[in-house]
């Protein structure tokens, strides 16, 4: 059986095509202004890569903030269900999923049967999302990947008090003026976002194994800060930004059955 998962996120669209629960193609692009068009074109690309047509698909499940605009979708689910499904497929021992995307941070607690038991979403504050690291990287005039690596070179604990991305930016500028080394500032930034995510995750209870998904999972600085903040080693998913699309494709397969 062939199915596809389409994750229309705030910043990027991700597609996963599955054949008999094996990933046969993926695709990713910026969401842009016309998310519906981007999703359609990207789906066509992914299907071409997989060497199948839309008619061969048993189902297409969409997820993400723009899930309702995917006209090809036969189903749609929220990121909570898709993230849990994809995560447990990757590692059946996962009990807590931390999903940090461009605009939102989420924590999901799952049972061993893969059922979502509880979830929390940080929606009101950019300080728990990828948008925060991006704006901080701009303030430090480095790119996001470099920001993560920079912080690995620091063991300093520089407090960042501002909870809001706007105020945090001015705090970063003050730290720069105080000639605080960039690597220490970078660590402070990651500590701040990790602390936000941790307090949200603690609300639902942090049980091992903890899998981190979403684009921000690729940021090594954030992962180190997160390990310290939650006082356990998290697992970072391979291709973390595709896990929700994977979960959606799995759900499409279940529903087609």
């Amino acid at each position, binding site marked *: 059986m062939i199915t596809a998962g389409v994750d229309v996120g705030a910043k990027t669209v991700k597609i996963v095509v599955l054949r008999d629960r094996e990933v046969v193609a993926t695709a990713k692009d910026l969401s842009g202004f016309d998310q519906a068009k981007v999703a359609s074109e990207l789906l066509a690309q992914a299907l071409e890569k997989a060497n199948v047509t839309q008619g061969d698909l048993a189902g297409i499940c969409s997820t993400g903030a723009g899930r309702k605009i995917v006209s090809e979708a036969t189903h749609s*689910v929220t990121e*909570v*269900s898709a993230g849990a499904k994809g995560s447990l497929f990757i590692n059946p021992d996962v009990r807590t999923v931390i999903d940090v995307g461009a605009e939102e941070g989420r924590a999901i607690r799952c049972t061993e049967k893969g*059922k979502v038991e509880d*979830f*929390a979403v940080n929606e*009101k504050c950019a300080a728990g999302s990828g948008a925060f690291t991006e704006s901080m990287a701009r303030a430090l005039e480095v790119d996001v990947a470099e920001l993560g690596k920079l912080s690995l070179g620091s063991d300093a604990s520089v407090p960042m008090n501002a909870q809001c991305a706007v105020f945090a930016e001015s705090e970063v500028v003050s730290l720069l003026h105080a000639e605080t080394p960039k690597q220490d500032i970078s660590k402070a930034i990651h500590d701040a976002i990790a602390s936000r995510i941790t307090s949200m995750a603690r609300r639902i209870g942090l049980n091992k194994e903890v899998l981190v998904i979403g684009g921000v999972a690729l940021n090594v600085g954030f992962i180190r800060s997160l390990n310290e903040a939650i006082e356990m080693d998290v697992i970072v998913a391979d291709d973390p930004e595709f896990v929700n699309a994977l979960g959606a494709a799995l759900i499409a397969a279940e529903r087609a059955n």
Partner: protein
Amino acid sequence: MAKYKTEPLKCWAKAKELRDKYYQDYATAHERGGIRWTGGAWSFDAIPYGLGDDVYPITGEPYAASIAFNKEFSLKCMEATEAKGWARDLCSYMRNYWGSMYLNKYNFGGPYPKPTFAFQDHICCSHAKWYQVVAEHEDIPYFNIDVSVGPYHLIKDNPQKIKYIVDQMHESIEFLEKVTGREYNDDKLIEAVKTDMRSTSTWAKICELNKNVPAPLEEKSMYSFYVFGTLSKAKKEFADFYDELYDEVKDRVDRGIAAVANERCRLMSDTQPPWGFLKVFRYLEKYGAISVGSLYTFGLVGNWEVKKDGTWGARETYMEKGIEINTRDEALTALADWTLSRPEWQHFYDPGLKTEMMLRIAKEWKLTGVMLHLNRGCEGLSTGIMENRLGLVESGIPVMTFEGNMGDEREFDLGRTMTRIDSFMETLDLEPISAD
């Protein structure tokens, strides 16, 4: 095919008429030589009724909620309040109300009708300051009663605590006589206290009917009715309306009439809803879900007690119990005792008490889950809400939270809240049964 029969409520038109009349009566009271006063939905509103039959209150919370519903005006009110230097994180009802006063605009047309006096009590920190600012701005006299004597289980057998409040009530009557130049009528006070008991006990009986499956009322409609208890508990027309409403809802129960045709998931909410976005309650219906009420809708207005079988039921009034109220002191003591037992008054002292009451509702109203509004607009009712969440979750009740503000639409995101509901429904294994 729908699971249950539904039909519109017959008393809608009457409810709207009564509410409109309340606001018009207040605005035009002076033209008729009457008295208008302002205060909170928690005020002992039976007391000013002793001044005569031409006394018209406007309570700040429901007035502010009506402003919040009028998004364009609400924004202007917020901006006017912020322009005076007040912080954006203060009570959003208070900010809407102040804005209307600063702009000198009444939400129901014309200028803001200046009250003769302000009459309030304070269980929440914002209560006293709210009307202090009004009194200073409008240059009117103000009386405030301190009710901070603890939760009811600690005061009901402690006459000193009740007396502390009753003494202030006596003083408040002297204040009312002085500022209005009227002679106070104890018979009218006694009547008003009895009316308060009748209306708040009947509202509890109406809420109790929602224990039935299917529920005869859903919470969005309940907001249109509970409001009378926040406008004036001691007003005869409102108590009579609750009697009528009870008969109609009871009849719906007897005939199996549902509020939501495909009810299959029963929820409760908590705290004031985001008034400009009540459509979230309609959105639940897509999943066959219904909010059957909340501690807020049940317990801000309704008076409850634990019955012999251990369940919650409407508190028996003094009249039902055959307790006589003959003097001013008896009336004030009865009013203090009655009011302080109301559920929403308890958890200001301890969120644990709220969790207990929520668990009771979850059990007795047969709930599937709970939707908690993390309401940034109300420090009073939001205090301890995450502790309540924990208590519910630990008891095995699924809970979703959503962030918002009852009176400041700038802090509410409709799309994201609906997504949150979608996620919650997915965790309850419920798929949509109708389109958006």
